[in-house]
């Protein structure tokens, strides 16, 4: 069977399941007694097992199977949750995630080996099993069937049978090595046994035995009225059998076990009832959701987005054409068209929105691991996970946020002892908030740690020769904070694995600015630090300034433009071969766009006199871009130049103007 067509679905769904697994594990750590969570985790593991089994990913299937065994033991009260088990489950989760990632990349489950994990899982399971071991051993290491369900089932059946005066026997059969028709021989044995009673279990399964999928031995559990010896006598008549061993299975012979089992059975029943009602509720909820959502390939959405962009372009063109006409009806129609395209645009944008939870959901785990590693107590409080942003933004925002959170945990929040000493709660709080604000989304990362030591920042900056002693003296708080974002600045005193690997906040800032956002810091010594990130809702449509160089039109993203001014060409000075101009008491480097873009200069153009200059910014760097003519501000749709031209210097993409012609979008970041 060709399964590749289901691969995408498999990956999507697995990721969803892993996501809920992660959440359940995290809450399990806080409420280890919550049986509902164990059930949820069990359910996820079971689903994953089933899915991966169908897809032929045996490694995932066997790992989840072992997880299931462990979880089953837990929910049957054979095991109690402790941190080791939770850690182990987290490890399993990591391994599963790794598998799924490999599957997503290569379409195969890869070579990753998790035998260690399986052994660990088993050892926990076996340790405990010794204590509450029932006489039915044979199912313990069963790996083919969904053993435990069967285990319970068989136990139940045997128990019932015993109550009704039947005996349960396990018969171990070893066939002779030279036995020719093993399946046939086994069939005879089965037949014989069925005359005496009911076969309730066999290992391997009946199907496998029929297909001769077994070595020389197999075992059968039957319920029978007859006694052991008469069965043995009958079986001994069958030829080609090396040995036969009959053991009576008695569950009641140790009262404890039966109690345990009874109890668990009751518990299971109860739980089943509970879960049933709960799942009913849940499924009702889910059903509602399922009925209202559709999974759509992102390519189709992109296509739809493209068409909407087309519509906007043609609308702009209509406005240009119709704006001049005297026809009143025409103008009205165009206005109507404009309203509709705006609505369609909004609607399509909304479809492409995904909740920021997609990024946030990995943080609880990260905070947990980091704080464990560092021996800190940290509580992560998230809000606004449902805030929606365009998926293009989602992909970009993850790394900067990780960096900020790591920073807060590593440098911001103090160790428990230190916190107690300064009279704070032992557990530090880390807030992660998101909320929409107009056309932007605001994300805040706030901690109640020690705050940024401004004096230290200053000293460091002087040490690193970023500023001089003199300047440092007269700096305002804001100016000092802005030092944090300078390249090559990192205040971590010791380089740790978590932060301070030389990649500083400047990278965060650049990344956020690259997607048209900005970042601010508020800090108070001893009280904490708050980073506020403001990012646009989407990257697909931006406001741009259209400019002309000769007769070529270029678009400059408005977000990186500071102001537009004119400068006198005589004011331009040369410093070390770079043209600069003194502008607002600062030296402003000059970039002549038509030179770097290879636009031919017309000879009659007057190079002296006033030059139109667009002051662009990147971080706190500024540059004056000399242009020939300003056209105006316009909403533009960003299109890629395609793979063939990707990476072209100074060009970030293209857009289609109202008249159908293409204008290139300048990559302002690359001009610095």
């Amino acid at each position, binding site marked *: 069977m060709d399964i590749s067509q289901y691969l995408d679905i498999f990956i999507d769904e697995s990721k969803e399941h892993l996501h809920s697994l992660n959440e359940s594990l995290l809450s399990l750590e806080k409420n280890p007694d919550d049986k509902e969570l164990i059930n949820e985790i069990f359910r996820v593991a079971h689903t994953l097992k089933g899915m991966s089994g169908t897809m032929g990913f045996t490694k995932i299937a066997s790992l989840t199977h072992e997880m299931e065994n462990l979880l089953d033991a837990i929910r049957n009260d054979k095991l109690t949750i402790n941190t080791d088990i939770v850690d182990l489950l987290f490890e399993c989760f990591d391994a599963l995630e790794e598998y799924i990632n490999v599957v997503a990349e290569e379409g195969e489950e890869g070579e990753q080996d998790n035998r260690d994990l399986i052994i660990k899982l088993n050892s926990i399971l076996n340790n405990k099993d010794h204590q509450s071991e029932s006489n039915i051993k044979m199912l313990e290491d069963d790996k083919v069937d969904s053993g435990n369900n069967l285990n319970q089932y068989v136990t139940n059946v045997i128990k019932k049978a015993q109550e009704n005066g039947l005996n349960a026997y396990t018969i171990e059969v070893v066939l002779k090595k030279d036995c020719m028709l093993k399946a046939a021989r086994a069939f005879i044995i089965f037949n014989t046994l069925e005359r005496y009673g009911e076969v309730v279990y066999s290992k391997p399964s009946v199907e496998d035995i029929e297909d001769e999928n077994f070595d020389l031995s197999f075992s059968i559990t039957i319920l029978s009225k007859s006694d052991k010896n008469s069965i043995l006598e009958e079986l001994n008549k069958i030829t080609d059998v090396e040995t036969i061993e009959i053991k009576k299975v008695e569950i009641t012979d140790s009262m404890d076990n039966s109690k345990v089992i009874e109890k668990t059975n009751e518990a299971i029943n109860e739980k089943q009832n509970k879960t049933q009602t709960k799942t009913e509720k849940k499924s009702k909820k889910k059903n509602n959701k399922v009925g209202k959502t559709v999974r759509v390939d992102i390519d189709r959405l992109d296509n739809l987005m493209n068409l909407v962009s087309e519509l906007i372009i043609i609308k702009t063109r209509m406005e240009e054409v119709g704006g001049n006409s005297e026809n009143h009806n025409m103008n009205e129609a165009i206005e109507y068209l404009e309203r509709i395209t705006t609505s369609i645009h909004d609607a399509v944008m909304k479809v492409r929105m995904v909740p920021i939870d997609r990024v946030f959901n990995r943080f609880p785990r990260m905070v947990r691991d980091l704080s464990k590693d560092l021996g800190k107590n940290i509580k992560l409080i998230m809000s606004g996970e449902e805030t929606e942003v365009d998926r293009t933004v989602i992909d970009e925002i993850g790394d900067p946020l990780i960096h900020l959170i790591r920073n807060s945990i590593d440098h911001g929040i103090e160790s428990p002892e230190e916190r107690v000493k300064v009279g704070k709660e032992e557990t530090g709080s880390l807030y992660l908030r998101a909320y929409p604000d107009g056309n932007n989304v605001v994300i805040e990362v706030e901690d109640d740690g020690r705050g940024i030591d401004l004096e230290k920042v200053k000293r460091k900056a002087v040490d690193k020769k970023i500023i001089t002693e003199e300047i440092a003296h007269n700096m305002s708080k804001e100016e000092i904070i802005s030092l944090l974002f300078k390249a090559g600045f990192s205040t971590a005193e010791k380089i740790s694995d978590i932060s301070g690997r030389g990649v500083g906040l400047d990278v965060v800032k650049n990344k956020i600015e690259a997607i048209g956002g900005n970042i601010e810091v508020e800090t108070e010594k001893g009280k904490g630090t708050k980073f506020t990130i403001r990012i646009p809702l989407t990257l697909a449509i931006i406001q741009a300034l259209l400019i002309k160089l000769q007769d070529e039109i270029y678009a400059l993203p408005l977000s990186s433009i500071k102001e537009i001014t004119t400068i006198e060409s005589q004011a331009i000075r040369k410093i070390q071969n770079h043209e600069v101009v003194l502008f607002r008491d600062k030296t402003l480097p000059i970039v002549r766009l038509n030179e770097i873009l290879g636009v031919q200069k017309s000879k009659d153009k007057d190079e002296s006199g006033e030059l139109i200059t667009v002051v662009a910014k990147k971080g706190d760097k500024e540059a004056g871009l000399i242009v020939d003519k300003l056209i105006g501000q316009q909403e533009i749709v960003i299109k890629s*130049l395609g*793979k*063939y*031209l990707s990476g*072209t210097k100074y060009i970030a993409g293209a857009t289609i103007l109202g008249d159908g012609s293409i204008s290139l979008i300048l990559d302002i970041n690359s001009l610095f």
Partner: protein
Amino acid sequence: MNQYVLFKLEDESYGIEIEYVKTIEKISNITRVPNTKPYVKGVINLRGEVIPVIDLRERFGLPIRDYNNDTRVVIVSIQDYIIGLIVDSSSEVIYLNDNEVDNPPVVGEVNTVEFIKGIGKKDGKLIMLLNLKKVL
């Protein structure tokens, strides 16, 4: 048997396998893209898609000629690349059997020979079959 789209450059016939050819367009406004190879003429707007175009004459080192009414852009799509090739003219599609295709000549116009993966012969005409990957 393969189908080829034929086009002309400097009175010689060239062919591209039809499965690579998306459409053939008349030449439209080209927006220059700075800092690219000289034969990359820029990008065109093909029904809302931004598509780079290259001038095959320049690519093959043939003399440059102004575009005219016959000039066509053959839009080809190979792997993830979609690119327009500017050619002198393009008019027909032909079938070539395997036995009508020869290996490329060892000697020949030095400039173009590396882009040719075979020579097709049909009705006494010679058709140079392009190796698109090399061209791009």
